[in-house]
């Protein structure tokens, strides 16, 4: 009787050990053995979704397993970013994180921030431009600055929601010129497209969204881009100068997108992913796709990506505090 019980117990223990030993071995050695879920915190069809889908299709080709892009939308990205951070760190759930991850925690919207992930690769970065209506009297960005200084509070700007990336871009720019961040009141909008329409309709004076977002209206001749907030000019719009060239100030900012997994991703899974992402980034398919849409490409390996996020986090924090939208 006793013998039998011991036997049973040891058999259970043995199988438990075997089970424990088996699972990580399978996860590590042969990853991926089943489809991988790729979470996108933004809606289908948008810039983040398009970028994620091209990256996922290239990963799929390289890794030999389906990469399922899943849009977990809502709450201005909070829901999807949380889903990536909270996923099981087995390599079967990764996702695309965006600049909002170093902004939302300052507003107290989420506890997750840049350090809540295993960064894998930074792949895209789009700086904002300073857009005005096609028939406005401002010939260049200096005219705009003069108008802002002459009548503080009169010009209105838009481009995204309250406290969004382009709002911070505007506020940081004003601060860099020694002005108060609310010298140009922000008109919240549901994204860049409605803001550009409102610009064309004469509802607002300035839109500080990214150049690819403004492109349709720029190409249609309904708006003009006066400057970009990046270190160098955009190859797709070589005639648009940088803020540094025009005003001699050092304010640069960008909306970026990168790939990350939940914290504690096994090192070999991470290494395999980074190698595959590097291949995807260098591929002609990716570069052509991004160039065609006017999306900027930039590569950051895990360390570079982490450093980039940490620097951005500090930058966003200081501007958002000045704007009064960061929680103490």
């Amino acid at each position, binding site marked *: 009787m006793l013998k039998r019980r011991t036997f049973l117990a040891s058999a259970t223990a043995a199988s438990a050990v075997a089970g424990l030993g088996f699972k990580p071995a399978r996860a590590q050695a042969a990853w991926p053995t089943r489809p991988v879920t790729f979470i996108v915190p933004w809606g289908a*069809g948008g810039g983040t979704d398009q970028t994620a889908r091209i990256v996922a299709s290239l990963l799929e080709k390289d890794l030999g397993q389906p990469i399922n892009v899943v849009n977990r939308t*809502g*709450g201005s990205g909070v829901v999807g970013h949380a889903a990536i951070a909270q996923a099981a760190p087995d390599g079967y759930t990764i996702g695309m994180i965006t600049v909002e991850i170093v902004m939302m925690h300052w507003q107290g919207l989420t506890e997750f921030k840049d350090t809540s992930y295993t960064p894998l690769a930074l792949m895209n970065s789009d700086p904002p431009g300073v857009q005005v209506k096609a028939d406005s009297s401002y010939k260049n960005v200096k005219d705009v600055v003069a108008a802002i200084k002459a009548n503080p509070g009169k010009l209105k700007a838009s481009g995204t*929601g309250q406290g969004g990336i382009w709002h911070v871009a505007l506020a940081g720019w004003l601060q860099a010129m020694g002005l108060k961040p609310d010298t140009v009141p*922000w*008109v919240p909008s549901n994204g860049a497209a409605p803001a550009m*329409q409102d610009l064309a309709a*004469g509802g607002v004076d300035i839109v500080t969204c990214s150049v690819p977002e403004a492109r349709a209206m720029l190409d249609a001749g309904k708006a003009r881009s006066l400057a970009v907030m990046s270190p160098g000019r955009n190859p797709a719009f070589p005639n648009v100068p940088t803020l540094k060239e025009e005003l001699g100030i050092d304010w640069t900012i960008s909306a970026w997108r990168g790939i990350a997994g939940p914290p504690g991703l096994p090192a070999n899974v991470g290494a395999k992913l980074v190698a595959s992402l590097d291949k995807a980034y260098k591929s002609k398919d990716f570069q052509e796709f991004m160039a065609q849409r006017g999306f900027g490409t930039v590569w950051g390996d895990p360390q570079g990506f982490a450093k980039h996020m940490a620097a951005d986090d500090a930058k966003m924090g200081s501007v958002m505090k000045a704007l009064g939208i960061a929680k103490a």
Partner: protein
Amino acid sequence: MDTALAALYLIADPYVLFIIVLSSAFGLFVGAMPGLTATMATALLVPITFFMPPVPALAAIVTASAMAIFAGDIPGALLRIPGTPASAAYTDEAYAMTLKGQAELALGAGVVFSAIGGIFGTIVLVTAAPALAEVALRFSSFEYFWLVCLGLTCAVFIAQDSAIKGMIALFLGLTVALIGLDNPAAVPRFTFGVTDLMGGIDMIQAMIGMFAIAEVLRAVAAANLRLPPPKPVSGPIFKGQWLLTKKYPVQIIRGSAIGTLIGALPGAGADIASWITYATSKRFSKEPEKFGTGHVEGIVESGAANNAAVSGAWIPALVFGIPGDSITAIVIGVLYLKNLNPGPTIFLEKPEIITALFTVFFLANIVMIPFGWLAIKSAKQILAVPREVLMPIVLMFCIVGAFAINNSPFGIGVMLVFGVIGFLMEDNGFPVAPVILGIVLGPMLEQNFVTSMIKSDGSFLFFFERPIAGMLGVTTLAVWGGMAWKGLRALRPVPA
């Protein structure tokens, strides 16, 4: 010309044509099946259209909804049970015709004048929408604010029995719209720390709940789901329709025009169009005494009206993002998912898709004639599908559909809650459509009000300063004033 060619290229794709055929069959089945409505057909299509390119996705919705509205006539005539609410107005009339041995004439009138009404509505859509879009390009938040106010006012007209209940339904919808982070101040409201609520209540999930789950609940709570055997249809269907066309030209045009107009009014759709035109048909008829005894005149007029409304509803949906009925409320959601944000700019940025969409409208209403004929001929088989098997399957589709919107089980919970709310509301005479109007228009109202106040530095005068805004503003205030005056007079006790 380039646009027309590009649109033709988009439509002539065998895949798109295949989708049109499939969704025709789907729409006819759902419409003919009592308890499944055209809105439900659209809601159930959403997760599938998710993964299609925009043109086939929209083609599926257009075809299925147009077919479903017509097919609702079939069980109305053969069983005296309307297949969709849009056929309810003349169900008794059609059934009376069937009893007189005129089922063929009633159903034939249904399909022929549905197609004519649908084409009439499409012609109005094709001419009016781009022209309106041209004007709307110059709209800023001030104009949109008034437009949304006017749209919300329509909730009163949707509620046919009680204006108070209509307004309460509207405000419940506005309350739902408060939830989440997506407001101008970007402050989480009514989220109670729940991350899933940050994104707010998804409109499509709420609609699957209110229009499909509520219906499934009603069905499972019914004692017997089996339908009685339908009356047979044997004779030729199109015989005599040409005579009807020559006899009732005024009715056809009046029905189509009123139907298109009601469709274009925010929130009011095919069902209201058919009630109103059945009434106008009777009022202006030379033989009103024949109504209710199996007289085809009313069927001609309101049969045309309900399909005209389906097309008309797309006018405000495409141009302003304001839903003309509950089907286009879902369409707006789908457009956003496809990154085809409705608004005047869509006519500039994606003209080929708009032209393709218009072509699909014509196509759908033309193929309605042969497909409708088939559906009428196979009515017996369609109505023999056991509903006790169908309803649980619909429930499962709803679950998967609600999940697919944002891949979260939370969405299924949202659907469940709204299913119960929709069920309770309908039991108590609260119209459901204003809730949808509130959910869609609430964020627009707040957004346009707050941004206008920021632009005007807090001055209300700006709401009247721009010429179009001023005109819209004065109209809105006049409508409200008129309604308040009427309401007050109704409250005052009549002196004896």
